[in-house]
């Protein structure tokens, strides 16, 4: 018995080659500063990344990540300070447990593990940030556009 009677709006034809959209949640004190350092140092990294600054990786709720996927992100990256270096002492330590569980949960349901990734980048690791972004974008490109959990409006 059909329940949903929604119509999805027709998809716009695109004549550009598909590029993955990666949403990155970066903690203000370490990772965002690290990304900034990459920029200042003129280290090139893929433009596919869209950065959202949060005060601390501990601020991240899984709702953010799932919403990003729902809105069409092909991959999500979350980055915080290295454990032990959190500006708020333990925000990233609390987050670490949540991230571990979330990663297991999503993979369990059949969502590719490369779609949601977590890392630690410090304020001085501009190069590391760029390298991680390269990796995440490449992996997303290989996987293709994300169709799981996407909401078509």
């Amino acid at each position, binding site marked *: 018995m059909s329940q949903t009677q929604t119509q999805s709006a027709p998809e716009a034809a695109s004549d550009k080659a598909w590029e993955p959209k990666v949403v990155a949640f970066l903690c203000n004190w370490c990772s965002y500063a690290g990304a900034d350092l990459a920029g200042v140092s003129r280290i090139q990294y893929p433009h596919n990344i869209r950065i959202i600054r949060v005060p601390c990786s501990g601020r991240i709720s899984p709702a953010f990540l799932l919403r990003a996927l729902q809105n069409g992100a092909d991959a999500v990256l979350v980055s915080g300070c290295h454990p032990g270096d959190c500006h708020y002492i333990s925000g990233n330590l609390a987050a670490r447990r949540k991230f571990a569980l979330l990663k297991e*949960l999503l993979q369990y349901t*059949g969502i590719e593990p490369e779609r949601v990734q977590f890392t630690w980048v410090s304020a001085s690791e501009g190069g590391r940030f760029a390298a991680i972004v390269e990796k995440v974008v490449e992996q997303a490109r290989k996987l293709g556009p994300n169709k799981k*959990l996407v909401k078509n409006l």
Partner: protein
Amino acid sequence: MTASHEIELRLRDTAEQLLREKKVGLFLGYEKATLPFRTTPLFLTTAEGAERLVWNPFCTANLAVYLPGLFKAPADARQAKSAPPPPTVGIVLKGCDVRSVVALIQERQVPRENLVLVGIACPGVVDRRKAERALGEHQALGAGEDARGNVHAVVDDGTEVTLRREQIVADACLECRAPTPSLHDVLLGTPVEAKETDAARRRMAEFESRPLDVRWARFQEMLAKCIRCNACRQACPMCSGCKTCLLDQTRPRWIGAGTDISDVGIYHLLRAFHLAGRCTECGACARACPMGLDVRLLARKMCQEVEDLYGYRPGEATDATPVLSAFSLDDPQDFVTEP
């Protein structure tokens, strides 16, 4: 007399005494329902009512779900002035239900000192849908337990049918690891040992052995039946404490209200995540679901991960810190992406 009937009589005496001696102002138990294979929760305030209490294989509800509502803190200082003192509550609890109460105590949602825990060692409750299906085209007019713990039902043509307990026991009970209440003020029934302690693990291992896309397809299949009624959430004692569920929030709105499969998926994913380290595997959610979804699909996984990664099981010790309220400097981090 069956073991259950003996327990039932002792339960009535216990409740009667507690109420009469005013050791509790409210006693939560079960009473006979209007349809077979079911009972209904009973909120007793008088000792005379104790004879309505029953104990049988159909006592399926997790009564802990009512506790957070009974102990809600006053909204503000002014309300606190006129608010009545928190009640003293006696409550009938199976092994799994006690874990829920302990988990609620861990989270400071309910005060231990206001509770009288009447634990009953439980061999597993009956899933009324399984029982009804087992009768095929017949309908039960009445059902009870026999001396062996099986269920005998009188069906519409007047005949009696015996249904073996293990065939109609609820899914959660097949994976039960805590049949005997660990915490109690009174314990009724002979303590039961958990039988298949890795039933859940084996089930998950089987699911995880399938490729990613097969798992996703299975997940989507389950979600397609969901009508977003929220029965799973409302029946869950760990969900019952929240004033407004994240998934009902409108500012911001995290998921849509309808059955768009993306919204349904995120509802279940987020709810399972919010139960990580809190779900006590009672199965009330799956039994409440009117569409027969395996609602525990994701929570089961979270229980396993929390055990494997952090050696933690909710609902075992009232003074244990909930797993996501704690951290260790050497928590595992194999999941972290390196360049």
